[in-house]
C-alpha cells in the first residue's frame, strides 16, 4: 500500500541565543492509511516538534526536509494558505491540553460549525446539523445542549472529546494525537483511547500517536518509532520492538517502566539524563548513558538506522548485526 504520509530527512533547527539548537535530525518515516504509528520518547526527544513541523506550525525557516508527501502531494512547497487548508480538513490534530487549544470565548458548537463553514463551505444550518452529529460521534452526552457550552464548563475528559470532535469534523485522512490522554485520569484515558480507535476504524484514518507512555502505545499502535535526542533510534512493528528491542535505549526504556501486573523487581533505571541539545556528544547521543558503549560509538556521523530483525524493524546502533542477544 502506498503511504499516506511520507517524510524524508526532516531537520528542525531553532535559532537560540546560545546558538542553533538541532531539535530534530534526519527523521524519515511513513504512515499507511488506517495505520497507527506511535512516536515515543522522553521530554526533549523531538517527538512533538517532528509533527509540528509537518503542520507548518514552527517558526519560518526552522524546518527543512528533503521530501514530505501527504496523500500523493509534496507539501514542502505549499504556502501558508494551502497548508492551513490541509490542517483541519485533511489532517486533524489533538493536543494534550484541550484547554489551551480550544478557544475559551467561543462555544463548543461555534468552534465546530466554523470547521464546516470554513473547510466545507456549508451553510449555517447545515454546519449546525453536522456539528451535532460530530458531537454524538465522539460520545458527548446530549450533543444538542452541549453546542452552547463553553470549554471551561466541561470536564477534562469531555473537553478532550470536544477537541477530538473538531479534529475529526472534516473526516481527515490523518489524525495527529500529541499526548492526547496524558492529562487525564486512567479511566478517562481508556474512554478517549477507545473513542479514537472507534473513529479511526469508522473513518479509516491513519493515526500518529505521540506519547511518552509505553503502556498506551502498546495498546494502540501498529508500529512504533522511538526517538532519542532528535533522532529516530528504533522503528518497527510494535510486537517486534517490544519483544526484541535492539537499540539499548529502547530496551532501557522498556525496562524502566514499573509493572503492576508482574512480580518483577523494581524497574531498572537508565543512568544519567538526556544530553543538552546544544552540547550533544559526538557519534551516538545515547553513548554516555549506554552500558554497552564502546570506542566506535563516538565516531561521527551517528549510526544510521539499519535492519534489526525481520523487516521493517530497524535500529540505529552499531551493535545491531553482531551476533548477540539483549534482554
Amino acid at each position, binding site marked *: 500500500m502506498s503511504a499516506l504520509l511520507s517524510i524524508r530527512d526532516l531537520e528542525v533547527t531553532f535559532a537560540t541565543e546560545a546558538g542553533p539548537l538541532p531539535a530534530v535530525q534526519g527523521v524519515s518515516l511513513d504512515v499507511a492509511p488506517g495505520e497507527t504509528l506511535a512516536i515515543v520518547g*522522553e*521530554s526533549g526527544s523531538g517527538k512533538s516538534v517532528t509533527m509540528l513541523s509537518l503542520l507548518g506550525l514552527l517558526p519560518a525557516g526552522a524546518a527543512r526536509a528533503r521530501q514530505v508527501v501527504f496523500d500523493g502531494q509534496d507539501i514542502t512547497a505549499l504556502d501558508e494558505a494551502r497548508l492551513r487548508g490541509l490542517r483541519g480538513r485533511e489532517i486533524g490534530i489533538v493536543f494534550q491540553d484541550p484547554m489551551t487549544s480550544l478557544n475559551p470565548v467561543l462555544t463548543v458548537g461555534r468552534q465546530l460549525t466554523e470547521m464546516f463553514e470554513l473547510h466545507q463551505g456549508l451553510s449555517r444550518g447545515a454546519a449546525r446539523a453536522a456539528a451535532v452529529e460530530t458531537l454524538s460521534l465522539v460520545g458527548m*452526552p446530549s450533543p444538542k445542549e452541549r453546542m452552547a457550552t463553553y470549554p471551561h464548563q466541561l*470536564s477534562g*475528559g*469531555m473537553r478532550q472529546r470536544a477537541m477530538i470532535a473538531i479534529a475529526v469534523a472534516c473526516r481527515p485522512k490523518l489524525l495527529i494525537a500529541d499526548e492526547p490522554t496524558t492529562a487525564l*485520569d*486512567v*479511566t*478517562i*484515558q*481508556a*474512554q478517549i483511547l*477507545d473513542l479514537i480507535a472507534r473513529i479511526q476504524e469508522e473513518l479509516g484514518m491513519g493515526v500518529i500517536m505521540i506519547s*511518552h*507512555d*509505553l*503502556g*498506551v*502505545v*502498546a*495498546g494502540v*499502535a501498529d508500529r512504533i518509532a522511538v526517538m532519542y535526542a532528535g533522532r529516530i533510534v528504533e522503528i518497527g512493528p*510494535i*510486537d517486534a520492538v*517490544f519483544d526484541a528491542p535492539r537499540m539499548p535505549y529502547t530496551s*532501557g*526504556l*522498556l525496562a*524502566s*517502566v*514499573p*509493572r*503492576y*501486573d*508482574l*512480580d518483577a523487581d*523494581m*524497574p*531498572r*533505571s*537508565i*543512568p544519567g*539524563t*538526556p544530553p543538552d541539545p546544544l552540547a550533544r556528544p559526538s557519534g551516538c547521543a545515547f553513548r554516555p548513558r549506554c552500558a554497552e558503549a564502546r570506542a566506535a560509538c563516538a565516531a561521527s556521523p551517528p549510526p544510521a538506522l539499519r535492519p534489526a530483525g525481520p523487516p521493517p524493524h530497524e535500529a540505529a546502533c552499531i551493535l545491531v548485526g553482531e551476533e548477540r542477544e539483549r534482554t
Partner: protein
Amino acid sequence: MTAPPLLEVADLRLHFPLGGGFAFGRRGTVKAVDGVDFRLEAGRTLGLVGESGCGKSTLGRAVVGLETPTSGSVTLGGRNLAARSRAERDADRRRMQMIFQDPFSSLNPRMTVGQTLAEPIRLHGLREGPGVAARVRELLGLVDLPEGARDRYPHEFSGGQRQRIGIARALACEPELVVCDEPVSALDVSIQAQIMRLLKRLQDELGVAYLFIGHELGVVRQVSDEIAVMYLGQIVERGAGRTLFREARHAYTRALISAAPIPDPRLERLRRRIILKGDPPSPIDPPSGCPFAGRCPVAIPRCHAERPPLERFGPDHAVACWRAGETPELLPILAQGAPARDGTSG
C-alpha cells in the same frame, strides 16, 4: 501487647463547606476525605492510589498537619496529634516530612541547595557549628548528588535532580515518616525509576516509613508494602502491595486495573477494558450509598442505598463492595480463553 503503629489514622474526615455569603446560604459540603482508617508501621510503605479528586493528596496533607481534620484522629507513635501542645507539635512536624510532585515550586529559588538543606537542621537544632556543613555533605551523598551541588541554585538542576534535593531536604529533619505526594509523576520514565530506587534504598538504610500517594498503578505497586485504593474520599479496597492488583475485588479497583495500560502489546490485545461511563462524581454532597455506585457497571439497588463497610476479605485484604464475592466473574479483565498471566487474572 504490641507497640502502637508509627502512624494510625482513625475515622478521619475533612469536610469543606462551600462558599455562600449570608445572602445565598451554604451551597453544600465538599467531603474531600470521608471516614478513612489505616495504620502504617515504622519502616514500611503504604501506597494511596486513586484518580484526581479522590482525596488522596488532602489525606496526605492532613497527616502531616497541613490541613485540619473536621473529625477523626491522626496518631503518631501512639500520641494523638490534635491533643498536643504547640511545642510538642513543632517536634512532631520534624518527625513527619513531605515531598511533592514538583520540587521546583517547593524549593526557594533564591537559596542555594546548601542553605536549603542547612535551614531545617539549624531550625530543629539537630546539629551545631561545623556539624551542620558536615550533615549537608552527608545528605547530598545520601541522595547521590555531587558535593558541588551545595553552592548551586534549584534552577541549575534537572527535574530528577531537583527531586533528589526535595528528598534530601525532607531527610534533613531526620523524619520517621515521609508523605510522598506523586514524587515521580512529573518525571520521564527513565528518571522515574532512578527516584523510585533511591526512595527504596533510603528506606532500607534509614528505616523511614512512606505514605506514598500516586495515580500510576505500576509505580505504587513497586514501592508499596500495602496499597489502599481511594474513591471519592473513601478507601474502597486495601491489600498487600504484591497481590492487590491481582486479586482486586472492588468493582472500581477492577475498572482501574482494566484501564491501566500494560507495556506489552500481546497482553494488551488479550485484555478487556471495563469502560466506565462518565466522569467521577463531584465530592460535593456525595451519594449516601457506595461512592462508586453511580458509575459501577454491576451496581444493585443496595449499592445506592447503603454504604458498604470496608470488610476483611481474606488475609491482608479488605474490600468495601457489596458484590465483592462475585466481581471477578462479573467483571473479567482478561478476554475469555486468554491464558492467565501474572497479575492480570482476576
